């Protein structure tokens, strides 16, 4: 893409991001969820699109982040400790001062990201020997196992969940505050990925996607690159999980590990937009979110059926995605030089 177009796109999206909550105050949280989905799709694309490791279990880190931030937020300023708080099942409502609440929240988000990243290192140590469909099935198993095991830990409330500390301040400020957090995390992730994909890291993970054995033979330390890629994904998913947990106000297994919803939406969004591109996931997430919100409103009760159908149609009939379709249709727009003479001779030889 030429720089002029890039600047235009960024200005447009940036203006929408900043002005969105002021122009459409009723939809602030909906737009916040939009940025969350953009982040999920973009970070899924690190492994799924750029590195060729199709994970169905990135949602694990989302849930881990959510629970870690809950534990940190409660334990930092509540003297009784987490166990007492969770065993009271929400009847304890500790009064945090503004200062305490926000310090706890920021610490929680940071801890969520870092601990999710550490978990990704542990999981990666036994997951990255799997390739292709085995990695996908294995990571799906990981997500289900994590969800089931979380419900049996009484320290974090077990099956009955945790209610998060109350937000100090009125409800409008609350939604704008969480909106800004979502937007900032997504923005940071986007620019980090933009830079990363332009460095040697981007080339290395693309080499892993194209042929891992050859990449290894060429001396690329594939294992380290894979761990770094999943680590970045896990960090942002964990941090976003922390924010989403506070946005929801109450967390349990269904909120923290939404495997059949966000866990699969993020893959669908990337496929809709086109995988292996920087903008594909962003575009796919925006389109998917709009479709989802409209079907949700008009198809009461049948919305899940509609979503399943969209997913199947998208995957079965529309594999290359929007960006892929645009790229093959108008290659010049993407700065891809097509050798016209070569193409003509090919077509002639076909005919």
């Amino acid at each position: 893409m030429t720089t002029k177009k890039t600047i235009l796109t960024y200005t447009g999206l940036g203006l929408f991001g900043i002005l969105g909550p002021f122009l459409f105050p009723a939809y602030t949280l909906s737009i916040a969820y939009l940025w969350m989905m953009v982040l999920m799709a973009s970070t899924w694309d690190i492994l799924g699109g750029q590195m060729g490791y199709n994970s169905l279990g990135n949602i694990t880190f989302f849930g881990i982040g959510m629970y870690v931030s809950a534990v940190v937020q409660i334990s930092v300023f509540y003297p009784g400790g987490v166990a007492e708080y969770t065993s009271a099942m929400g009847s304890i409502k500790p009064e945090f001062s503004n200062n305490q609440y926000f310090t706890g929240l920021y610490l929680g988000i940071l801890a969520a990201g870092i601990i999710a990243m550490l978990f990704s290192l542990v999981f990666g140590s036994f997951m990255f020997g799997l390739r292709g469909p085995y990695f996908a099935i294995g990571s799906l198993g990981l997500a289900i196992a994590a969800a089931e095991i979380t419900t049996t830990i009484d320290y974090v409330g077990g099956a009955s969940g945790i209610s998060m500390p109350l937000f100090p301040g009125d409800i409008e400020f609350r939604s704008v505050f969480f909106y800004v957090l979502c937007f900032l995390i997504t923005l940071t992730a986007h620019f980090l990925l933009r830079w990363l994909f332009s460095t040697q890291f981007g080339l290395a993970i693309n080499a892993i996607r194209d042929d891992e054995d050859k990449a290894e033979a060429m001396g690329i330390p594939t294992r380290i690159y894979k761990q770094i890629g999943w680590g970045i994904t896990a960090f942002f998913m964990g941090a976003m999980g922390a924010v989403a947990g506070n946005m929801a106000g109450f967390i349990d297994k269904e909120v923290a590990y939404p495997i059949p919803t966000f866990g699969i939406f993020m893959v669908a969004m990337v496929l809709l937009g086109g995988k292996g591109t920087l903008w594909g996931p962003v575009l796919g997430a925006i389109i998917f979110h709009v479709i989802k919100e409209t079907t949700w409103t008009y198809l009461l009760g049948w919305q899940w059926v509609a979503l399943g159908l969209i997913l199947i149609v998208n995957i079965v009939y529309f594999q290359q995605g929007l960006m892929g379709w645009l790229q093959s249709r108008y290659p010049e727009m993407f700065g891809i030089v097509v050798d016209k003479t070569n193409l003509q001779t090919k077509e002639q030889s076909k005919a």
Partner: protein
Amino acid sequence: MLDNIQLLFVWAPIINVQIILEGIFLGAVFALSAYGLALVWGVMNIKNLAQGDFVIMGGYLSLAFSQYNLSIFLILPLVMIIMFFYGLIVYRLMIRRVIDQDMFTSLLATFGLSLLMQQVMNLIWGPEVQIIDLDFPVYDAFDGFVTIPSIKIISLILAGMLSLGIVLFMKKSRTGQAIRATAQDPRAARVLGIDTDKIYEFTFSLNSAICGAAGVFVSVIWVLQPFYGITYSVRSFAIVTAAGLGNLPAVITAGFGIGLFEKYVGAIIGTAYEVAAPVSMLLIVLVFRQISMKKNRQAVK
């Protein structure tokens, strides 16, 4: 946990008999659905994540028929026929288009199908856990320590006969030979005049019918719930990953193994881990496969 172990092995070892029997009854169902998965996987390289939902759908069909007071010997073939044609429709609409694409596509497409089936079943039959209560006698053994409902024994025998029938069909019949030929080398099979598209279609429908039969057994010996399908899929994947494709004795052994493992985990650690058990089993199998492959510097592909 320690109490449970003591109970099992010191105070009342007779309870083991009950657990082992339960494990065998369940294992037969798991082995059936895993064999269907291995069939489709081996012949057309489709990894069907909707396998468990086919099972659950068969169970719900059997529930619907049992309301007309039909006997299980009639329900079983009826459900199998309906599921066969359901598989045919799914193949024509969807699977045919993802066969040639990369493996992740089939995985994701069948995951979408799984979500769709779950939701439709949820809308039709509701999210409650349901059971079929057929009037079959229950036998006691060992002073009432072990109870054996005769319906479970009947299901086990039927499952055994069904798998024997499938094995004979694959070995002896012309279609079975064609399926095996296509699994070995689709191109050569096409050259020799086998219509591989028809074979794929038949294989997928057969898998669907096998799942339907497994679903009938689930409905009479266990419980039904629209969202339980994914655990059957995960179990099938664990079994196939451990046993390999096209190795029927190994699939059956692994099926009984995972049934026993689950029942023992449920009895010793607690029923809260009953879903986590098959999933952890899958992860353990995958890790072991990796270790054995790593000796030859290979990855699990």
